[in-house]
């Protein structure tokens, strides 16, 4: 099988810089994706995710820096590389008048050893819309057809740009299962997403990208490890009637804890939560005749990490 030997990275990007006019889309981005994993490039809109992906796909020539995909230069070795990769664009990619199965059969005809179209159609729940023109498919169906188009040639490496944008929960799980199955079949998957839960549940490697750079990288577990809990982090939270005497609650806790009510009726205990902390909070609640609803100890989610790293500004 013409795959890079295990351990050799499927994608290597070093100091990539891409500008559009005065706008710097990618600003010295470096990352390395090992073969056989699902890698998520996670970032807010405009972070440079799509530009980075398109450079790997050979659409754009790096203005500075170096990109290697399966050991090849995506621009100079384009003809050798393209048959080995699958690409799913953020949207579109099919003729508006083409029927779903017709499109898949056409893509299959461009490959020497394609997957059986029927199998893909079945797996992606596209059986009923076989004769429907592309423009009349729902957004989710178009998205799944795009994924099927990227898969049908049995690629070694798959680039998918926001694969589950606009999908309902069932379809998201279908896509996730399929991507996991691809991984166990030996396919490397590089996806972009701004859904934290997608990256957290699906990816082996996460690259958090902001302002055109990788600001954090690692496994989801490593990124969410509690050792870096920031001062803003809610460690224990519950809901109760508004207006509790939070100063009194804070007084029962060791120093270093802070209690907030924000918004009204939602309480957060910030600090190094230990089993004893829980006991003190519930005791205080019992003494004050408060039923703490939805009481939970917060592990940091990737979303917390993401917002810490990229800020809360809308863009």
């Amino acid at each position, binding site marked *: 099988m*013409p795959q890079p030997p295990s351990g050799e990275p499927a994608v290597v990007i070093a100091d990539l810089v891409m500008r559009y006019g005065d706008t710097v889309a990618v600003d010295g981005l470096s990352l390395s994706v090992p073969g056989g994993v699902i890698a998520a490039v996670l970032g807010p809109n405009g972070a440079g995710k799509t530009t980075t992906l398109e450079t790997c796909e050979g659409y754009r020539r790096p203005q500075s820096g170096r990109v290697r995909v399966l050991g090849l230069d995506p621009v100079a070795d384009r003809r050798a590389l393209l048959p080995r990769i699958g690409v799913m664009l953020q*949207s579109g990619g*099919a003729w508006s008048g083409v029927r779903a199965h017709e499109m898949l059969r056409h893509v299959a005809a461009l490959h020497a050893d394609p997957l059986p179209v029927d199998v893909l159609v079945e797996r992606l729940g596209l059986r009923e819309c076989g004769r429907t023109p592309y423009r009349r498919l729902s957004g989710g169906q178009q998205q799944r057809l795009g994924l099927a188009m990227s898969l049908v040639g049995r690629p070694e490496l798959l680039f998918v740009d926001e694969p589950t944008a606009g999908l309902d929960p069932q379809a998201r799980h279908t896509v996730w299962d399929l991507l996991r199955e691809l991984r166990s079949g030996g396919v490397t998957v590089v996806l972009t997403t701004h859904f934290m839960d997608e990256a957290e549940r699906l990816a082996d490697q996460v690259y958090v990208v902001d302002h055109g750079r990788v600001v954090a990288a690692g496994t989801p577990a490593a990124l969410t490890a509690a050792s870096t809990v920031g001062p803003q982090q809610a460690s224990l939270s519950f809901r109760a009637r508004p207006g509790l005497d939070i100063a009194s609650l804070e007084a029962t806790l060791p120093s270093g804890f802070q209690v907030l009510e924000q918004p009204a009726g939602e309480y957060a205990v910030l600090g190094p939560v230990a089993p004893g902390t829980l006991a003190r909070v519930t005791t205080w609640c019992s003494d004050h005749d408060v039923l703490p609803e939805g009481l939970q100890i917060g592990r940091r989610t990737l979303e917390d990490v993401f917002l810490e790293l990229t800020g809360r500004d809308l863009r």
Partner: protein
Amino acid sequence: MNGTFAPAASAAPLHRMVRAQTVMEARLLLRNGEQLVLALVIPLVVLVAGVLAAERFDLVEGDAVGHLTPGVVALAVMSTAFTSLAIATGFERRYGVLKWLGSSPLPRAGLLLGKTSALLLVEVGQIGCIAAAAYALGWRPTPGAAGALGLVLAVGLGTLAFASLGLLMAGTLRAEATLAAANLVFVLLAIGGGVVVSPREYGEVGDVLRLLPSGALHEAIASALGDGSIAWGACGVLVVWAALGSALTARTFRWE
């Protein structure tokens, strides 16, 4: 199930990719009602109405259908190679089809070959229908071998010239603008471009019209189907337009 998605990626042989692309593009060119109107209904209406009117009002001396058929063939070639192609390509850009194909194993040359072959395939069908209708109206051409060669040359070069101009438009304008402009240019050339009626019959502007791809295409087809000769001058004009259109398209075409 694990084996299902095991990588086994490789491109199909080029000839298979081009054949697939040709068939796909030809099917899509004929899929829409409005494209069928442009490709067949308008030329046939022009032919039948023209012949009936010429006979009713004595507009043409002698053989009206022999006089009109070459221009209708030229009109049909222009409708497909220019208008249909421009509109289809404009929307291919809009919907990211060209972009996606750019990531597929099909090379750019294979895509252009597929597009050109699809145009020629559709044109053969159009010419067949027009010839059958003309025959029913009494058309009896005697082009001979040189005329047949001249027709192939005229349609081939006319297709290249108009297709390169259609792609120039589609590769620079927005899809809606291309839709409007391609139809407008078609109507203007059909009426005043010397494509249906010989440039000679426009009087003094005729010399200018013969330098347009529309007038040159008419002359090349009329020579081939008329006295069975090859109009080298008109073919030369088409070559120049094809070269000009291709060079400009290659420089300006934006894939998305």
